[in-house]
């Protein structure tokens, strides 16, 4: 091929296009990685969050990016919560393994719900909760899940303004769009 200006530009465009495509190809089929959680921890946490805000006609906690939100907040703002999360997740799985012989994510939906209801009241056997307080763990996860789902999307959750759409709030929000002076 003759090396002239036209061909050079064509090559550049082709090259640029492929670099845009490459990352998309490489992440396909791979699960998201987190800064504060291993993939297994993230799966367990996601399952807990999904119980708190389940999928119905609208996406739930997992699809709206709540785990991403929690991961981000621990990394940016609340590093002190990392330990509680790790110990809490471990305690949940340790209890599940001893009673059901499987991890939390493998439990039936209703068993998961029941477990969390018991944990919220602080009534799971204490031997799994020597490090973290189960009520405190539940309280924090619940609170962070609500923040992630109902807070502003730029914090990492509420993907595509899903909770705002669900609540019939007109978004994206434009300051000054609000009508006034109309009767």
């Amino acid at each position: 091929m003759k090396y002239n200006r036209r061909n050079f530009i064509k090559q550049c465009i082709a090259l640029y296009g492929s670099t845009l495509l490459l990352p998309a190809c490489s992440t396909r089929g791979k699960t998201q990685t987190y800064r504060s959680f291993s993939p297994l921890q993230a799966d367990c946490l996601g399952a807990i969050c999904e119980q708190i805000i389940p999928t119905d006609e609208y996406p739930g906690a997992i699809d709206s990016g709540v785990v991403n939100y929690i991961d981000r907040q621990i990394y940016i703002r609340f590093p002190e919560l990392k330990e509680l999360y790790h110990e809490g997740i471990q305690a949940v799985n340790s209890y599940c393994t001893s009673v059901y012989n499987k991890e939390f994510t493998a439990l039936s939906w209703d068993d998961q719900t029941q477990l969390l209801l018991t944990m919220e009241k602080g009534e799971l056997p204490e031997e799994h909760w020597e490090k973290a307080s189960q009520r405190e763990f539940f309280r924090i996860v619940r609170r962070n899940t609500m923040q992630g789902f109902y807070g502003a999307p730029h914090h990492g959750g509420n993907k595509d303004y899903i909770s705002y759409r669900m609540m019939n709030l007109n978004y994206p929000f434009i300051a000054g769009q609000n009508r006034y002076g109309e009767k």
Partner: protein
Amino acid sequence: MGKNKYITAIVVGAGAGGGIVAKELATSNIKVTLFERGDWPSYDKHFNDELISQRVQDLGTSFGPDGKKNPRVLISPDGKRNTVYRAVNHIAACVGSGTVSYGAMAWRFMPEDFKMKSTYGAVEGSTLDDWPISYEDLAPSYDKAEREIGVAGDMSGIPFAPNKDNPYPMPPFEYSREGEFLKNVCQNMELHPFPVPMLRNSVPYNGRGACIRNRYCVGTACPVNAKNGTQNTVIPVAMQTGNCEVKTNCFVYKIHTDGKGKATGVAYFDENNKSKTLEADIIVLSASAHETARLLLNSKSVEFPNGIGNNNDWVGRNHQGHSYTGAVALFDFDILDLTTGPNTTLGIMDYNHHNKGIIGGGLLANEFFLGPYAFTDQRPPGSPTWGKEHKKYQRENYQRTGLLVGPIQEIPIFDARVTIAEDVKDFWGVPVAAFSGGHHPLDKINCQFLSSKAEEIFIKAGAVKIWRRGGGEGQQGGGQHQGGTCRMGNNPATSVTDSFGRIHDMENLYVADGSLMVTNGGFNPVLTIMALAFRVGGHIASKWM
């Protein structure tokens, strides 16, 4: 004093009180240095972000203070000390302070609020007292605050309103859907509803445009600068005189005295955290009820071993806030209209004073819109707090939930106080404020009274489900309505300042913020703080110039 020398003043804190004092002094040709521990505010920094606002502070505050640098100690009734590294009192730290992010309700206290003891008699276990000034004494300063900062409202025809014959400079805001609906209910009950007076521009005013009826207003700055605070009114006026320098990111931590009843200057950390001093002829403290008390208590000397003005142990005492109570109601139709905002438009003051058996009382107003996250906690008692039901409730009832709330006038007690935790230091190494003490037992009873009244209105309004809010118990934290810690009075033995905010025993040291309030009223206090600042500032200017 030589003819060519200017009189100099230091004002500590550029909030509701300090901004006004700075303007009053600067326009009287006094050279003012206005200290602010925060920065100039900017709306863009926290654009419509519910999780970082002054109202919901889960991820931080929009206008400081940084909780990690400014810890607090909470001492529970059983003596347990808890150091918290987060903003605990919703107080802002920026030029304008709370007036940047407040809901901007502009209440005048009623004449009875200045004469609580003569109206109701002494209350056992309480420091309840009369103010050294009457409503009439403060009325001209209320007028000034309403005009110079800018208030929209209409109190004509409200028999309890002391300013019913005195129009506001701007017409009132129109009622929101909820406001209009509840107004009609109140009228049918022979109550006296009115549009809540607001420190916002209902029409263009004072060189700035009108409010755009932003949905979420309280907790954030205004995107079009139509909410009126000291940062966009009096402080620019003060700066334009050429007599006022605003020192931002500078934190005053000690007042120096000469041992002969005169304050000589302040020590502060500048924007690079270097300790410096500045001298002045006059010093005015407007750092908030918590920080002003802390500053005085931290300023120990031979003359004042327990802190300035504290030889009778009154600095930090009488600490009050507002227990916000009322009722929440669920309707079977959309009572809210989210296309406009910020919703609080209807007020009643039928339950402030003259209610049998109730000392004080409080106003009721329909509440500002809650953000989606704040609404996750608005559920009838016993409802699921998570799961499918909770999510369904969120979308079905967000626009069907009405709130009627108000601040109860707290009955002050001697043991509710701000002290210094000598062993807990802030980022700069200065001992922090500690809060201890609880509530007078009447607070809980008064909260029950006010919430039952809110419930009555919702019953008449045909709500399908109503639940009441409690309040009036637990630790006294002051909150954003903190007051009373340097109460004014004629008797130096039972107060901290005189009726013009001058600290007893001190020739040139004044207070101009919520600390002065003898009693906190059953109203949001900001307009009263502004009026007090006009009074103190005007007095200093007339006395010193």
